[in-house]
């Protein structure tokens, strides 16, 4: 009886380990899948926020604001809003 329980426990542990390993494993990345992901993650060029003529230098903005008689709009974030996250 004890031997049976030990065998069953071992089998269960083995199958759990296999399941975890399967979950962590990524299928091998093929050239086709890589090409597809490259396209999928490239944003369309016509995203509205990209049509805004953002400056990334505050002083450049200050000089333009003065010359064009316009207020500055500063989008200040943690991490660069155009380049991070």
């Amino acid at each position, binding site marked *: 009886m004890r031997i049976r329980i030990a065998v069953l426990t071992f089998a269960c542990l083995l199958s759990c380990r296999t399941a975890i390993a399967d*979950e*962590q*494993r*990524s299928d*091998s*990345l*093929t*050239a086709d*899948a*890589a090409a597809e*992901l*490259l396209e*999928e*993650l*490239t*944003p369309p060029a016509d*995203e*509205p*926020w990209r*049509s*805004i*003529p*953002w*400056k*990334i*230098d*505050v*002083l450049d*903005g*200050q*000089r*333009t*604001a*003065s*010359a*064009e*008689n*316009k*207020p*500055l*709009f*500063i*989008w*200040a*974030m*943690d*991490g*660069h*809003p*155009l*380049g*991070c*996250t």
Partner: protein
Amino acid sequence: MLDRESTFAHPEIVKLLRTEFVPIAIDQAYQRRQKDTEGNYYRKIAAQGPRDLNGTTQGFYVASASGKLLLYNNNRDPEKVLRLMKQSATEFRRLPSSDRQATGLRDQQVDRRYSPAPPKGGLVIRVRARILDGYEPTDNKWRRIFQTATSRDNLWLTAEEHKSLAAGTVPDLVARRLARYHLVDNTRGEPPMWKDSEIKSIDLKISDGTINGNVHLRTASGDREYKADLHGWIESKGGRVTRLDLVARGNFRGEGPYTRGAPRGWFPLAVTFRLADGKDTADAIPPQGSRGWIQGYLR
């Protein structure tokens, strides 16, 4: 990316910014620390708002060229932002010309620590990441934006590294930089980067114009981990890289203090790398992992 998908996707806000304002986008962690003309000017504006300059000053600011603050807002509702922008534009027109058209400022001092430029003769690679699956379905529109978001960052390479890649070799430092600072889940905010000791294994090789490899990253406590395969292509001409496309795809688990809300358990994460053409303003933005520490990032 919430703002990119909501506030700055609103047609009227986009139109106003294109015509009535001078739009500026910054990582305030730089300007609020910079000991130079730009830092002084930004702090002059931010100090008039509600934020303590010793902490984050994030938000939207409208100001005159003289530095007079007309609006501070950190609300993400596009309709509210639009209304406040219109109000502040009206207020701006009432200001004297000494405020509206104050003398343009010159960079009399430049704090080099916070003004890094892409390495001369090097490469800028655009990096994007996306979680491919694993989130619980939601009707919440803000959560949905995060769940489908594609993040952005830049990878910088030095002239020496550029030369090595063009010759068909991936320098160890490049592989480790790519892993530590760019194989991260930054789709919900600023991610924790990997320590060098958290690179459990990395293999990245070029053979006949194809890049192949794999990586295993894991924190000491085991609370974050990424196992991925890499595949891509590289072409060069006259000692210059003319194409670099690379994809990492694998399973990730865990999150950081500013990237809460990751899917539970293991989830598929893809990160793509593509040579920048220098046409995008964002190409000049330093890598997030280099913040105030470009030498450490490149070393």
